[in-house]
């Protein structure tokens, strides 16, 4: 999947792959062009109206038009070298219709005129009518009120594209230098920046103009022990976020100190890489874990990925229904479990919610890609499964009369479908610090950062690794461990959750490139949590000899 390929950029075997996934039809541009304004909103409305009118005249009963301009910039470095700087732009229009009760979609690159849009709309209607012949049931679209002409802008402080490339290069090279000075043999660091300028018009009467920004600073250091021939790595503890360049402004209030410093809404890349270099070196001397049952204390920089895989994905309604059976898989969280109103997804401490409005999150937008205003809703309440993530043509299946706003396409050229909202673990209601949580653990492991991840196609059995592992003995951190991975079953795991720290510890992690669909589309999504404790989880030792 996309995210895995992108992770390879930072890991071993990077020689051949230095291009992360970009929106379709992306073309190289100069950095200045990323700051040029897109089409005026009045022009976009005129174009969209042309498409909607053309579709209607050909018999469409519903139309949405997405005019998208997708801008990407990434800066890739290793040690003292800039390996790559890429600026890209992708512009075009996607038109989706319902005709004869069936969906049809057509897209057009570089669409400039009403005639271009009308042609795409007519093609979409023709496709819908052709597909209608093979259709089993007509599309049932949840009603949606029109919002008129509205706009939404991510509340960023500094557009990353306004920061000169030289400043970004200087930052990364200084970060690399700090890593090398502090014990790393090799270091890779990357800055990835995205701006999605999306305009959506629907025949329900919504014209939504949105401006979305994302940034992800990422790094890996490698420390080699020449004597043993072993190498160890440590990835940066940053999160990809829905923020501007201000994420890279270090702020003491956003630092969580402890066994190692973690970060909230501001990331100190220089400080983290310095720690990473020392920790990668220290891993060589760390104790290899003894396999067995441990109480796990999981930092939000780690737990986000477990939430993503074991809660976010299985509660996507299209997976539950079987639409992803040939690729990503189906789900153990079947409709009968939800209908029973008593399926124990987790312990009483477990409250999981979906939220497309969280400030600074990757999934935050004002309106989804079919004109539904975004919101927050519960998925698991006091341990019980209460809801899924759905879009307009699925809402009726779960008895909802409106969509939850989970519709997304990764490009104007891709057809929108159900994607994961930000899914998060609610913080504990009673005051609890990480220190107090660890104090009660007799035999445990404290895990920080995300690592290896794998889960089955129905989301039962999973295995996760991390970046840093610390042994907890009788309430104290006893030293660093290595070769750690834990295996569990989703329901068993969330039912072993005995405590969640309070909201002071709540932080977001996330994925820039979550993959789904055939042909695959990527989406960006955040997952928040406070540090949480899970009792008696099976830990394996991953050391091998070849």
């Amino acid at each position, binding site marked *: 999947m996309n995210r895995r390929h992108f992770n390879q950029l930072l890991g071993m075997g990077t020689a051949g792959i230095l291009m992360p996934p970009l929106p379709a039809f992306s073309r190289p541009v100069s950095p200045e062009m990323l700051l040029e304004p897109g089409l005026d909103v009045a022009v976009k409305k005129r174009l969209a109206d042309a498409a909607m009118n053309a579709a209607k005249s050909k018999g469409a009963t519903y139309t949405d038009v997405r005019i998208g301009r997708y801008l990407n910039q990434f800066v890739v470095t290793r040690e003292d070298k800039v390996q790559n700087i890429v600026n890209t732009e992708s512009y075009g229009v996607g038109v989706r219709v319902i005709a004869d009760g069936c969906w049809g979609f057509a897209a057009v690159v570089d669409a400039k005129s009403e005639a271009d849009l009308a042609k795409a709309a007519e093609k979409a209607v023709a496709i819908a009518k052709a597909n209608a012949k*093979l259709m089993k049931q007509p599309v049932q679209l949840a009603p949606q009120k029109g919002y008129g002409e509205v706009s939404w802008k991510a509340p960023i402080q500094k557009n990353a594209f306004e920061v000169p490339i030289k400043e970004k290069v200087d930052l990364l090279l200084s970060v690399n230098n700090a890593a090398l000075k502090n014990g790393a043999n090799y270091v890779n660091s990357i800055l990835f920046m995205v701006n999605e300028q999306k305009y959506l018009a629907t025949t329900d009467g919504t014209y939504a103009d949105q401006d979305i920004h994302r940034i992800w600073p990422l790094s890996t250091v490698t420390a080699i022990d020449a004597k043993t021939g072993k190498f160890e790595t440590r990835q940066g503890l940053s999160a990809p976020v829905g923020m501007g360049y201000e994420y890279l402004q270090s702020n003491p209030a956003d630092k969580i100190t402890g066994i190692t410093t973690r970060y909230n809404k501001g990331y100190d890349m220089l400080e983290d890489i310095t720690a990473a270099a020392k920790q990668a070196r220290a891993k060589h001397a760390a104790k290899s874990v003894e396999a067995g049952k441990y109480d796990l204390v999981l930092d939000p920089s780690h737990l986000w990925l477990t939430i993503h895989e074991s809660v976010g994905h299985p509660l996507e309604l299209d997976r539950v229904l079987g639409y992803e059976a040939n690729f990503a898989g189906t789900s153990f969280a079947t409709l009968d479990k939800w209908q029973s109103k008593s399926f124990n997804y987790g312990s009483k401490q477990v409250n999981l919610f979906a939220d497309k409005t969280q400030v600074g999150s990757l999934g935050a937008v004002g309106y989804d890609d079919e004109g539904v205003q975004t919101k927050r809703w519960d998925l698991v309440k006091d341990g019980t499964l209460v809801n899924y993530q759905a879009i307009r043509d699925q809402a009726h299946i779960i008895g909802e009369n409106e969509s939850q706003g989970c519709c997304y396409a990764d490009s104007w050229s891709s057809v929108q479908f159900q994607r994961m909202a930000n899914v998060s673990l609610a913080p504990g209601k009673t005051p609890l610090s990480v220190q107090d949580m660890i104090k009660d653990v007799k035999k445990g492991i404290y895990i920080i950062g995300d690592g290896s991840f794998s889960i089955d196609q129905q989301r039962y059995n999973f295995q996760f690794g991390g970046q840093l592992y610390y042994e907890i003995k009788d309430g104290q951190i006893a030293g660093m461990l290595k070769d750690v*991975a834990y295996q569990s079953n989703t329901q068993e795991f969330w039912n072993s959750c005995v405590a969640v720290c309070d909201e002071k510890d709540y932080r977001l992690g996330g994925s820039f490139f979550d993959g789904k669909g055939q042909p695959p589309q990527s989406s960006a999504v955040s997952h928040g949590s406070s540090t949480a404790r899970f009792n008696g989880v099976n830990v394996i030792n991953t050391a091998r000899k070849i």
Partner: protein
Amino acid sequence: MAILTQAEAKRIIDKALSYAKADETSVSLTGGRTGNIRYARNSVSTSGEADNLALAVTAVFGKRSGTATINELDDASLEKTVRRAEEIAKLAPENPEYMPMLGPQTYLQTNTYAESTAKIDPEFRAKAAFDSIGPCKTKNLTAAGYMEDTTGFTSIGNSKGLFGYNRSTGVDFSITVRTADGLGSGYANPDVNDVTKLSTKAATEVAMSKAVASVNARALEPGKYTVILEPTASVELLQNMMFSMDARNADEGRSFLSKKGGGTRLGEKLFDERVNIITDPMNAELPLSPFGGGGGGGGGAGRFGGGSDGRPQEKVTWVEKGVVKNMPATRFWAEKKGIKAIPPPTGIIMMGGTESLADLIKSTTKGILVTRLWYIRAVDPQTLLYTGLTRDGTFYIENGQIKYPVKNFRFNESPVIMLNNLEALGKPVRAGGHLIPPMKIRDFTFTSLSDAV
């Protein structure tokens, strides 16, 4: 459809190069069509078709390079794009690892194009889906499948006289069949260039029989088992291993091919002596492009740092009788180390024997047949330890016969260890763009059970 002939492509590339003022300029021109059809719950969910034609120019001044692209091919657009690439290049930082572009190359004549695939149209795709859904409906089974066909050309050229042109086609079809009660699931994923070699009905029937046969799976204790890995099961592990053989990573001490105390394990016997792995663009069953795209420039590694710099693809022996014989290297690294700059492997061919999958099963006293491995992720890059799960048809074998379906397992295993625990190899078949034999492996490590179907 935007398939240009060699002469048309050469004319356009030469025209673009005629405008070039940089120290070195390369042009790549690609075009073609991709079509797909997707279905689930026995009904088509999406289908589409897209044409594409794009020209990319990379201009280089000293060690600074810039790229610009365009999809209009008139003279004015070509000139504008060359100028744009030159402007971007002048502003780019120097790449200390930049390697000069290659001069004229001699490329093999490979056969990667099938007219039958190029002729695929929406009706053909609809019929392919219908042939797959129909039999499932009749047997009260549920089909979810995807077919994607591609027809395209790539042409490359540069200011030093390099020119290459290749047309290719490909079809990827995958089908998952599930029983109505959700207790059985089967899969098939044939891989061809020529669509006349694909029967979606036949592939679906394989998935149907696996789905029906996998109902009521029994739980076996996790542990070490003799396994028969079908090519669709082993292909990703082998591919991951082959893509981890880069010479630079090994020299730098961060690869499974790094040697204790420095250097690499080139020339060492790392696998069972029956392991022989090559790539060969001329292989009749697995024809490949005779060159990587791009046309030159980059850090000795192509426009965006990939392995695509116009180096010819030739027959390469990677592993012979279990000994590591070659490792891929960028041109920069090859020059630095005084080694041959072999491009990274594509289209891996693992040699096998003559036995069929059925023969391998027949000769097994106790073992597990694995259709597919899924969600494979690296656990430790040092040992190439991977984890993942079996999926869509896992069966217990006793005394040469499939006895009953078993619940899916999670594995933690390294392909390096796996290829030392080799029991037998069957006749290679195409899977995932490679040519891989079914293989029997002893002591394959399953670490837990999964309830997933």
